[in-house]
């Protein structure tokens, strides 16, 4: 199977008043369909910048200097090239940290799903919108899809809200889903459920998942591969087991040592 997402030598710089700040420094990454890659690192390591670079939503003063991002063989991001408007929402879906803020509070879940579907599926009928909305919420293991569809975000529990937000990201059947710290705001039990949900989605739908988190343990549970980031560089990149059991880099060893254990 060929690579779904390839990031090669990606270098991203922010132009600040005083100086230029390198946010990403020659980042390499590969992800296949049906795989989960965990991007792990502390705050400011560049993991969110990486996630945003893939969908072309960097801040205005931030530019791609070198390298490229390709999705299914097509170059979408390179210096001076930005074709992300063709993939945003259709080939790539994104889930964010806090679902209570990533849904429009004034719209029912139904309207928000319908909006994304209408935008990306040409000439979709009303019945088809309804069918796919119910279908995607059922895929999210929501037992009562119609109730959720007819709810405003604030009427749902945190877990339901996050699942509705994930539904919003995958309803257009993207090949790649980017989850940016999307379990951080949830309690541990809900976190586990969301993580399990991601695993089944990846297995069932064959999507590729780029899972950005600072939680190394969570990543080790969920991910096939792990990329450890520090100061804008990928310092370690490999299969999850290998990274966790035989860390090659000092930084990863320190990160692992920082996890509290029972003993």
């Amino acid at each position: 199977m060929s690579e779904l997402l390839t990031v090669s030598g990606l270098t991203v710089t922010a132009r600040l008043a005083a100086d230029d700040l390198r946010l990403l420094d020659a980042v390499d990454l590969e992800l296949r369909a049906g795989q989960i890659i965990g991007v792990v690192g502390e705050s400011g390591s560049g993991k969110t910048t990486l996630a945003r670079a893939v969908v072309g939503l960097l801040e205005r003063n931030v530019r791609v200097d070198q390298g490229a991002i390709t999705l299914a063989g097509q170059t979408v991001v390179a210096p001076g090239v930005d074709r992300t408007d063709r993939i945003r929402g259709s080939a790539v879906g994104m889930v964010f940290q806090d679902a209570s803020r990533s849904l429009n509070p004034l719209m029912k879940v139904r309207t928000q799903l319908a909006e994304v579907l209408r935008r990306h599926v040409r000439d979709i009928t009303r019945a088809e919108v309804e069918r796919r909305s119910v279908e995607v919420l059922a895929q999210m293991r929501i037992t009562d899809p119609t109730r959720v569809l007819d709810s405003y975000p604030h009427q749902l529990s945190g877990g339901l809200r996050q699942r509705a937000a994930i539904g919003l990201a995958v309803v257009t059947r993207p090949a790649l889903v980017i989850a940016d710290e999307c379990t951080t705001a949830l309690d541990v039990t809900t976190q586990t459920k969301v993580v399990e949900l991601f695993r089944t989605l990846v297995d069932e739908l064959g999507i590729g998942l780029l899972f950005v988190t600072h939680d190394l343990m969570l990543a080790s549970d969920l991910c096939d591969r792990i990329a450890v980031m520090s100061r804008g560089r990928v310092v370690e990149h490999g299969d999850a087991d290998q990274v966790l059991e035989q860390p090659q880099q000092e930084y990863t060893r320190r990160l692992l040592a920082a996890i509290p254990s029972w003993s």
Partner: protein
Amino acid sequence: MRAVSHLQLDPVSVRRASRRPRTSVFWLSLPLAVTVGLVFLLPLTGLLPDAGQNLDATRQPPGFLDGGAWAHPLGTDKLGQDVLTQFVSAGRLTIVIGLVGALVAIVPGTLLGVLAGYFRGWVDRVISVLINAQLALPFILVALAIIANRGSSLPVLFLVLALTGWAVCARVTRSATLAVRERQFVFGLRAAGASETRIVLRHILPNLAGTIVALGTLQVGTAILVESALSFLGLGVVPPRASWGSMLASGQDELSQAWWIAFFPGLAITLLVLLVNLLGDALLTHHDPRKRRR
């Protein structure tokens, strides 16, 4: 003690507070609707006294006072014209001025404010300079300059109301837009491939609706007050047209002999502006589904 006590919300008062918006919107709209209805429908009934002059019956007190006659329920002015008839037709003009005056300020103000707040960059810089320039100009000077140049007429009055009102609206919607655009769902929409136009029209604007409605109602009040002030200076509505503001102005030198000429329009302006502002407040709470009980 006080700092602590406001945190202790008992369930009953919480429930009552969340119920209030709907009922208060109704109870505030009712008198406004009645006023508008009366002012627009009364002339059609033929019940109002004749509007003409009658120099034999000048400065007659209202019907409920000594020396008054029910033929003129609110008395007559110095030309013997019926005050109630004037009051009703002036009310019509006042309400129209309030609504149109608010609209001409709100529409361009909101548009520019949202553009500046959403797109930032040079758009924001240009619009912000315009806002600051407008706010630096004293309103009365702007009004005088325009009216001196173009004469007083309704279109000129609306131009003055638009020019004096848009900047405040633009500044408030700009900052509200700045806050909304930073919210995560806006980023989520962009990540989901929504177009900028759609984000602004379908998502940013509805999230500003509370602010816009509040601004709008406040602007209705402001428009009525500005019109009254201009009319008081003889710059707003001029005879043969009359608004409550111009009635107030023409009644002021009669205050010692015939207070009722100025009193009723003055009272009406006060109550109307108060009701409109309270309604704006209630709508603000009502609009937000999170504050609404379902």
